[in-house]
């Protein structure tokens, strides 16, 4: 497969070939509390061909790639009153439409057999041989299961103290969180999605992966959702600094999902995990306008 890059002017998104991928996502409550099991394998990563340098030298825009790392919600969100009523109704419909399960049939049979035993004209020879079932009746099984259920302690769904800690990746388990890093742009420190400059000879997706791995003191394992960027932010430098060769920067955003494994928490690391509603407090308005378009708040 050949890969062709179009560097500038990047009015339209650069087109990239497809990497066929295999990915398996599972959501299981057992195991890591905060994260989903996530495994992916890339099949046939092809070598690429570098485009002519002449085409790129004319572009006055610097290219950067940023990664929008998301932690998916771990538990389902609480339902609103209408949703709860509807859920109740659906549950009732499903129950009434369903057929009796094996266990329930057994319960009925046992009850019937008990009533037959109690009758005066009971002849045990007429009964079919159900030797095993006489020892363990279905009702007893139910009682045992009830006991086990009572001794089971589920973890609390919402923990108020963890929710307030913005640096923890385990806050707000019902929402999806986005990673923000404090990086230096020009002379000032800004909160933005982790980004880094594009270098010659690599695809934009690889730049985004590099942006993620080059973050200080964080071992984030992420799976990128695709080769195509999901958003673009154009930034023109103020007129004073503008020159022939650099009018501004264009930042391409790539989506990624945080894979399994809680990253090591360090107090000094300048990271924040924020919900979409909290993004406004940290991002600049123009940047925010472009970024909020592709962050889904489902």
């Amino acid at each position, binding site marked *: *497969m050949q890969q062709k890059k179009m560097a500038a002017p990047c009015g339209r*998104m650069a*087109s*990239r*070939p*497809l990497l*066929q991928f*295999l*990915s*398996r*996502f*599972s*959501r*299981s*409550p057992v195991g890591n509390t905060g994260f989903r099991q996530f495994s992916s394998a890339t099949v046939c990563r092809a070598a690429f061909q570098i485009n002519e340098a002449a085409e790129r030298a004319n572009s006055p825009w610097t290219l950067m790639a940023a990664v929008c790392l*998301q932690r*998916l*919600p771990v*538990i*389902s969100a609480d339902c609103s009153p209408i949703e709860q009523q509807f859920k109740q109704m659906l549950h009732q419909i*499903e129950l009434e439409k369903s057929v009796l399960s*094996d266990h329930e049939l057994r319960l009925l049979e046992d009850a019937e057999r008990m009533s037959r035993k109690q009758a005066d004209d009971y002849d045990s020879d007429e009964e079919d041989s159900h030797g095993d079932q006489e020892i363990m009746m279905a009702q007893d099984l139910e009682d045992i299961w009830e006991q086990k259920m009572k001794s089971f302690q589920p973890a609390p769904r919402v923990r108020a103290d963890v929710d307030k800690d913005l640096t923890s990746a385990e806050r707000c388990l019902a929402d*999806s969180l986005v990673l923000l890093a404090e990086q230096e742009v020009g002379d000032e420190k800004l909160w933005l999605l982790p980004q880094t400059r594009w270098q010659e000879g690599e695809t934009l997706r690889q730049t985004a992966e590099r942006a993620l791995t080059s973050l200080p003191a964080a071992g984030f394992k992420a799976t990128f*959702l*695709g*080769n*195509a960027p*999901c958003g673009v932010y154009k930034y023109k430098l103020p007129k004073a600094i503008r020159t022939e060769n650099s009018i501004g920067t264009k930042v391409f955003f*790539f*989506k990624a*999902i945080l894979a399994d494994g809680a990253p090591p928490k360090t107090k000094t690391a300048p990271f924040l995990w924020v919900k979409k509603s909290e993004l406004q407090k940290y991002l600049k308005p123009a940047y925010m306008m472009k970024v909020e378009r*592709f962050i*889904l708040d*489902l």
Partner: protein
Amino acid sequence: MNPVFRKVQASVAQQALLLNKALTPCRAAPSIRHPVWCTHSVNERQYKGMPTHGIGRWKYLLPKQAPRKKKDKQQMKQIVSATDTAYGTLNVNVSGYDMTVVEHYSQYIHNFCNRLGIKVADSYALPTKSTEVMLMQEQGTKTYVDAVLKTHHRVIQLSTLNAALCPVFMDVLLKNQPEGVQLSVTEHTEADFQARFKARPELEGLIAQMNQ
């Protein structure tokens, strides 16, 4: 009113005159241009059988139907191969223990694809697998059956998926994944298709005998 009528009559008369003038030259022409009309006489027939021959024919007006074979062997739909900007045939596999949740989730994915304009090639269910959970008894080494868990599978086959649409699609699917449901997206292969059918040992035995 009268002047109007007179004018109308006058114009009609003028038109009639014009028509007559136009017709007279034409009337002479047929005899020159179509000599055939003159050669046949009234007694010779130009049609087959009766004049009403074939008057009741209607089956030729029906749309053409392909001849139906007795039993169609399940043919596999063509597997679309991946191009530079789109994935080929993909299988979205949803599995879990709770059947209602799994089915509702697969219906959600199907509706979502319809809404986004992603073509859904096929949507089927794989057979349910039963897993027996056996626990060791407290006293003794024998294990006893504690529970039977049934794993349900639903597969949605997409014919193509645009590469630019893929991250959005995957993001929405992942964010709406319910608890206890496994989601997996793989490429569709011939082996996947053949796995749906039961093996027929007698047929395979006969084929092996024939090949020997």
